[in-house]
C-alpha cells in the first residue's frame, strides 16, 4: 500500500468505528447531559442494572429472540433439507422467493404483517411478534443452512439409507451432525436479527409486550441519556461475541 491508499484506508476505518468508540466512552462519562468529558464513572451501568422496566423488556426480547431463533432454525433446516434432497416443481421459485424476503424493505414486511394480523384478529403481543420475527429470520436461516448443505456429499444420505438407516436415523445421525455448525450460526444470526429489530416490531407489538429495542427507541426520543450509552455498549459487546463465535464455527467445517 502506498501512503495515499493507507491514509484513505485509515480514514474509512475511523469513519466506521469512531461512533462506537464514542458511545462506549460516553457510557462512562460522569455527567447526565453534557457531551464534554467529566470524569470516569460506573454509575450508568449500575443504574441500568437496577432499572426494573428495562429488566422486563430485556426479558421480553430474550424470550422472543430465543424462541424465534430456535423455531426459525428448525424450520430452516427442514426447508433447506427439502430443497437439497428433493427435486420438485417450484423448487427454484421457492429459492428465489426466499432471497426476495431477505432484501424486501422492513417497512413493507411490517405493514404486510400488521394488516394480516389485524384481518385475522390476532391480538398484538408476544404471538404476533413471534410470528413476525420467525418470518424475517427464516430466509436467513435457510440461506445459511442451504449454503452448508451445498458442500455436503449427497452420497452420504444414500450410504446411510443403504446401511439401513430409517428416515429418523438419517436425520439424527447424518443430517444434524453434518449441519451442526450451520445450525448454530443460523440460531445466532436469527437471535441477533430478532434482538435488535425495531421497524417490524414497532408495527406488530402491543402495549403489554414491549421489546428492548422499542423501549430504547422510546427512551432516546426523550433526549440523550447516558443509560442508553451503557446499554448500547453492552449490546456491542454481545454482538462482537456472537460474531467471533460464528466465525469460529464457520471456519472449522467438520
Amino acid at each position: 500500500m502506498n501512503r495515499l491508499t493507507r491514509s484513505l484506508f485509515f480514514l474509512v476505518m475511523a469513519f466506521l468505528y469512531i461512533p462506537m468508540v464514542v458511545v462506549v466512552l460516553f457510557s462512562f462519562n460522569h455527567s447526565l447531559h453534557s457531551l464534554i468529558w467529566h470524569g470516569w464513572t460506573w454509575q450508568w451501568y449500575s443504574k441500568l442494572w437496577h432499572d426494573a422496566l428495562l429488566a422486563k423488556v430485556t426479558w421480553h426480547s430474550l424470550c422472543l429472540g430465543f424462541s424465534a431463533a430456535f423455531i426459525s432454525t428448525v424450520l430452516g433446516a427442514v426447508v433447506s433439507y427439502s430443497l437439497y434432497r428433493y427435486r420438485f416443481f417450484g423448487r427454484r421459485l421457492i429459492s428465489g422467493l426466499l432471497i426476495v424476503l431477505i432484501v424486501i424493505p422492513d417497512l413493507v414486511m411490517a405493514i404486510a404483517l400488521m394488516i394480516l394480523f389485524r384481518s385475522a384478529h390476532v391480538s398484538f403481543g408476544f404471538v404476533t411478534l413471534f410470528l413476525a420475527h420467525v418470518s424475517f429470520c427464516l430466509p436467513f436461516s435457510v440461506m445459511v443452512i442451504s449454503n452448508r448443505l451445498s458442500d455436503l456429499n449427497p452420497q452420504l444420505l444414500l450410504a446411510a439409507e443403504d446401511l439401513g438407516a430409517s428416515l429418523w436415523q438419517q436425520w439424527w445421525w447424518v443430517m444434524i451432525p453434518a449441519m451442526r455448525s450451520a445450525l448454530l450460526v443460523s440460531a445466532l444470526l436469527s437471535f441477533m436479527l430478532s434482538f435488535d429489530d425495531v421497524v417490524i416490531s414497532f408495527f406488530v407489538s402491543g402495549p403489554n409486550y414491549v421489546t428492548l429495542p422499542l423501549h430504547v427507541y422510546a427512551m432516546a426520543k426523550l433526549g440523550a441519556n447516558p443509560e442508553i450509552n451503557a446499554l448500547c455498549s453492552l449490546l456491542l459487546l454481545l454482538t462482537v461475541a456472537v460474531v467471533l463465535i460464528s466465525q469460529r464455527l464457520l471456519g472449522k467445517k467438520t
Partner: protein
Amino acid sequence: MQQSIITCRDLVWQPKKTAFSLQAIDLDIYVGEFLTLLGPSGCGKTSLLRLLGGLIEPASGDLLLRGKRINGLDAAHRPINMVFQNYALFPFMSVADNVGFALRCQGIRGEAYHQRISEILEKVHLTGFEKRYPSELSGGQQQRVAIARALINKPSVLLLDEPMSALDKQIKRSLRRELKSLQKELGITFVMVTHDQEEALSMSDRIVLMREGRIVQIDTPRGMYESPKTLYAAQFIGEANIFRLPVKSVHDKSLIVTLCDRTFLIKKPLKHEEITTHVNLIIRPEDFQAWDSSEIESDKLYLPGRVESVIYKGSTVELQVILSDGTPVSVTEFFDETDETLDYRCGESVHLSWQAGWEVVLNDDS
C-alpha cells in the same frame, strides 16, 4: 456350471421424463466372482448397480437373489451393500462409528457391537484405527473403512460404484491391487462399476460391457480383448485398428479381401450367411510388426506405409503409420531379444505384417 447369486431376467428400467432407459438386462452374477460393469458415462452401468442395490426399482422383469425374487424389497432389507463413489464415509464419525453405523441402525449395542466392529476391522487390516477420523486416513485406508462399513452386516454381494474415480493414477494402481486381494481374501461377490477399461481388465473375473442401456457383451477380460463380438467392444477395450474392406470371394474356411492393392486370405469366423459385401478386419497395434525394406524378401504380403510419428515409451515404441492407401494405423513394438534396437525415423518407409489368425473379423454393428 457356476452357481449364480444374482440373476437379472429381462430387467427394464424407465425413468420419468428422460429418454434414457435400461432395456432387456439379462445377467447372471456368480458366487464369489469379481464382476465389472463397464461402459462410457450414460450407458446405464450405475443405474444397473442401483437396481441391484434396491436404490431404484425396475419397471418390469425379475431380479432374483439365490433364486428368490427380490423386486420391490428396499435397500435396507437386501443382503447387498454398496461402496460409494469416493467412499462417502461420514466425516464427523470415527472409523469405529462409521463401521458400526449399520449395527446402530438395528439397535445393536454393547458387547456385541464392539465385538463385530473389531472383527471386521481385523479382516480389512485396520485394527487400532478405531478412533481415527476419515480425514486422517490415506486413500487405501479409507477404501478399507468403506468396505468394512458395507460388510458389517455380512451381505452376500458388495456393490462398488466407481470407488476410485476421483483419485490420482499412482494411488489408483495400488488401490486396485489392494481391492482385488481383499476380495479374494473375503470371498465375497463384488460388482464394480467403472468407465476405466484398464481397471476393468486388470481386476475383473468377468466384464459386462454396456452401451446405451443395453448389455453388449459379457466375457472374461481376455475374451473381451481378444475376441470382441462387436466393433464397439473392440474400440472401447484397448486400442484397435479397424479396416472396413470389400469381400472379394468367400471360400469354405476363408475369405479373400484386398487391402492396399494386396490380397489377403483370412480365416472365416463368421457364418457363411452372415457375410455381406464388406467385413471389418480388426488388428491390435501390438499384433503388427514393422519391417524396413532390407528385412523382407518380397513386399507382396506386407502392407507398405510411411512412419508418421514415433513415441518412445520405455518398454515399447508406438508408431503412427500411414499406409499407401492413406489409412492411418497404430503399431506398438516391444523391445525383446529379436529386435533390440527398434530404431524408427519419421518419414521412413516400413512394411507391416501381422500374425496370421490373430485378426478379428466382424460385421458392422447393427
